[in-house]
């Protein structure tokens, strides 16, 4: 029998460890990755002519980043590696890909999707003003471009990335003007017992916060963001918020980095037909997987932050595990001891992640009560009021109908940045739980394709 055709989507921590496992079993998978170089987002590599060391770029995670990069580089000769390539649809046993102006459809016997995550965002009045970025963007500017997003930056939101990015800016010589965290110390304490699953990680987070405070960066907890100040013409000039005492306050800045932990990039799993379930803990719909990373579709495997937000270490374990599941399903022996070890690691990461969700909760009540004038959908400029109108006047029973009526989530980003907020707003307008308000369905192409693309007929 010919070697099975295996496609791995993504070359971040999960994708790299999956590929490593598959290659070790003698297989030669095709690896599709959007980035020019492997590493994913958190271990994203700088351009080839940049010279900073792994230690400067990745700090305490330098050894992990280096190991992951070196592992992938050593594997590249054994795989059909397709960098700068978008997997834009999965249908009928084919992965549809695009590079530059060429599209191709690749058949597979097994597909492993490790598509990662993007920032979860709460819209705010003014969040489209120039100078407003996601926390991920603020970090990419620093790591991959050697730039700060502004000279005077406020970081706003919650989650591990908030304090990490603020600390990275401090360390890079551009101390933030302030860190505004929607979570309170009481929330943090609620998450603490579960976060003890990874004491080292917990300690790192505490060190970031302590370093920021030592450097005199104001770190405010329990805030309620109200608006980005400035205009669409002048850009960001500040941020308006209510502090923990209920006092309205403003801080001047010329850039804002915002984010509320992460959301899974699950569109490809959706297009592949995988079943989803609502996860109350993170208030997101996520693809169903078994303890190994098998989806509900027989030959589709899911790993990393694209299916469970466990962070980079969890993604490495999940990637290896999903590859073992795939190998076992095609008749290769399952290394029992290694599998159990990976599952134990994953269980610890999952426990820690439940702690993170409690410690830095998605402020869904604030999202649900955003003022009517707030632009929720950046792409189509749809306001919270228009979205509520779709529910109240037009009786949309869930988000996909609300999308049809209001165009929320219909734009070029396909709801990546407004989808979760829209679900909360629709749920509140219906006075129903968010789990009963549906999720925006994935649509192909998952990202825009140039109109001039042509099919490559030479490839079968």
């Amino acid at each position: 029998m010919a070697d099975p055709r295996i496609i791995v989507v993504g070359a971040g921590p999960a994708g790299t460890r999956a590929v490593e496992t598959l290659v070790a079993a003698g297989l030669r998978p095709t690896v599709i990755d959007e980035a020019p170089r492997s590493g994913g987002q958190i271990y994203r590599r700088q351009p080839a002519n940049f010279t900073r060391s792994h230690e400067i770029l990745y700090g305490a995670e330098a050894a992990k980043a280096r190991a992951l990069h070196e592992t992938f580089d050593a594997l590249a000769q054994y795989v059909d590696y397709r960098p700068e390539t978008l997997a834009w649809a999965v249908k009928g046993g084919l992965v549809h890909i695009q590079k530059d102006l060429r599209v191709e459809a690749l058949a597979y016997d097994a597909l492993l999707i490790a598509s990662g995550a993007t920032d979860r965002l709460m819209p705010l009045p003014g969040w489209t003003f120039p100078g407003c970025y996601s926390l991920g963007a603020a970090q990419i500017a620093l790591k991959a471009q050697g730039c700060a997003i502004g000279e005077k930056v406020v970081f706003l939101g919650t989650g591990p990335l908030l304090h990490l990015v603020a600390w990275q800016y401090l360390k890079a010589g551009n101390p933030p003007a302030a860190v505004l965290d929607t979570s309170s110390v009481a929330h943090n304490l609620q998450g603490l017992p579960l976060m003890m699953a990874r004491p080292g990680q917990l300690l790192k987070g505490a060190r970031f916060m302590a370093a920021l405070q030592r450097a005199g960066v104001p770190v405010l907890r329990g805030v309620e963001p109200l608006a980005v100040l400035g205009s669409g013409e002048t850009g960001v000039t500040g941020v308006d918020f209510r502090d923990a005492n209920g006092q309205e306050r403003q801080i001047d800045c010329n850039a804002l980095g915002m984010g509320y932990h992460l959301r899974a990039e699950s569109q490809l799993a959706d297009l592949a037909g995988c079943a989803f379930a609502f996860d109350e803990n993170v208030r997101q719909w996520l693809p169903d997987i078994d303890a190994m990373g098998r989806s509900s579709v027989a030959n589709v495997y899911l790993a990393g932050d694209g299916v469970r937000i466990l962070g980079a270490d969890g993604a490495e374990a999940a990637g290896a595990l999903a590859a073992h599941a795939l190998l076992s399903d095609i008749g290769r022996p399952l290394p029992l001891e290694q599998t159990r070890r990976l599952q134990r690691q994953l269980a610890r990461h999952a426990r820690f992640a439940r702690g993170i969700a409690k410690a830095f909760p998605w402020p869904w009540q604030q999202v649900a009560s955003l003022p009517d004038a707030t632009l929720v959908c950046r792409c189509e400029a749809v306001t919270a009021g228009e979205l509520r109108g779709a529910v109240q006047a037009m009786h949309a029973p869930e988000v996909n109908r609300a999308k049809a009526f209001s165009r929320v989530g219909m734009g070029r980003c396909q709801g990546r940045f407004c989808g979760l907020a829209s679900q909360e707003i629709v749920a509140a307008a219906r006075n129903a739980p968010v789990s009963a308000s549906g999720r925006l369905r994935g649509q192909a192409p998952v990202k825009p394709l140039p109109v001039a693309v042509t099919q490559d007929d030479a490839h079968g």
Partner: protein
Amino acid sequence: MQARFVRLSEQDRQPVMLTIDGAPVEALEGDVLLTVLMLNTGFARVSEFGDGRRAGFCMMGACQDCWVWTEDGGRLRACSTPVSEGLALRTSAPEGLWPIPA
């Protein structure tokens, strides 16, 4: 509008010349277009919906809020396109573009 990004490191790179809305701009090899825009004009495009200027958001090719034009009517996603010598960028659609040339 003002420049917003600040270079903190990696400044010893080859210069690359391009234009933004006709004005010459010096970038460094390895910069992506969004970086150059935010070091100079401070925005990338104008919203189709009258809410003002936009300057990208996610910098990882997900939000699609940083698509810019080239003088000859091409479209580029600014956060994922590296600079190249002689590139002529526009923050709005060039005049007389429609119908789009084949």
